[in-house]
């Protein structure tokens, strides 16, 4: 692991029906993933408003990941299809504004994929750690 003591703050929006259960399974199976990942449960991945993502960055997040059911498996039939389009557009815009693209990600994690959840988080945290602190969407008022 990294030598320095830098601990990123990762916000993971997890859909209630698949990914949150996937995270649960990862825990039950004693699979390791970094403690810096803070999970926020949402009813569906399409509940995630772009504002949530920006506010997470404002409040000190270094990376934001959205996890939902696999396309086609949405509990509400089509929610994650919308998520897919919205986040594609938003992430492309953030990249356009010069915000590092590795800080945002969407992954589809089902309730059975505890291992995928842990692996995804490990990978995501590693990438964010490599980038270091979020400086481009920070709000200095929120820094201690």
């Amino acid at each position, binding site marked *: 692991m990294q030598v320095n003591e830098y601990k990123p703050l990762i916000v993971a929006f997890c859909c209630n029906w698949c990914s949150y259960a996937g995270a649960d399974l990862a825990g039950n199976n004693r699979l390791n993933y970094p403690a810096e990942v803070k999970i926020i449960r949402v009813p569906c991945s399409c509940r995630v408003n772009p504002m949530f993502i920006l506010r997470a960055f404002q409040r000190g997040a270094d990376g934001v990941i959205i996890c939902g059911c696999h396309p086609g498996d949405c509990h509400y039939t089509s929610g994650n299809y919308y998520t897919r*389009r919205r986040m594609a*557009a938003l992430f492309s*815009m953030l990249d*356009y504004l*010069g*915000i590092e693209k590795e800080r945002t990600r969407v992954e589809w994690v089902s309730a059975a994929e505890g291992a995928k959840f842990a692996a995804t988080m490990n990978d995501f945290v590693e990438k964010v750690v490599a980038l270091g602190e979020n400086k481009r969407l920070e709000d200095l008022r929120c820094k201690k």
Partner: protein
Amino acid sequence: MQKITREQLIEKAVALLADGTVSCVLGWSKGEFDYDVTPAIFNNEEELKANFVFNDFCGVNFSKYLVAKTQKCEGKILVFLKPCDTYSFNQLLTEHRFDREKVYAVGIPCEGMADVAKVKTICGDGIASINFDGENLAVTTLYEDAPVMISTNDVLAERCVNCKSKKHVAYDELIGDEGEVIESNRFDEVEKLEAMTPDERFAFWQNELSRCIRCNACRDACPACTCEKCVFDNPNSGVENKSPANSFEEKMFHIIRAFHVAGRCTDCGECSRVCPQNIPLHLLNRKFIKDMNEFYGEYQAGAEVGSRAPLVDYTTEDLEPGEVFNRGDMNA
């Protein structure tokens, strides 16, 4: 130089008022200077003859005014729409923002509108008068005796340089000739930015957006921003912030605003026109338009009433958000 004249429009308006088709006219009213033009409601022939103007500075898009004015005005409103305005007009109809029955839309051709700031970079401050002389503007300043001749093509507003359509997509009646949709170069600037490194892009936007004074002019002029209460005005939203503090608030505001109008923005360019700090806000909207064209197929908001915008639609085969960047890399 516009191909139709003020007199033609007044004549049309007077006729429509006289036969009772409309009860008032939404048009451009002359101001203190030859270039300053204020949108206004005209109720009769005298008012029209006294104050109505039509010249190279009539850039204001009237579509948004219809939302409020159709509710207030009894009878129909006559509105003059340039080709780009008709897209906003359709988009507002798609969103059921005003009653089509209360509007009589007259399409007018547009040869592109001039930007007075560009005029001033050529002739300097202190414009005493502007005469519209064929293809040229004859600008007399307080400081030179002879007028400066400026070709209108040299001072076109950015949105008109990159005009996307001279075709009207909605009207009850058309004055003059119908134009065509144009292959514009409007995405060139966006591509230029995309080709930069993230650091360069960040520096570019940091410089632009940090100038924002949060006057909300972009939002209040935008025909796609017609929420009854904006989330940024609502104290209960948790994001209501009136000021650009710490370089975050203004980024948040502009990203969210651009996202909220993504798929609904017709690229009319009002946001950039009204920005007192000349922030190229259209580059944010065009990025969304370009992306969605590439990701989900060509789509022009407002081209037809009732069309479904890309962000409220989906297919099962859409690309994954992660692939967005791969595409970018391939392009670069």
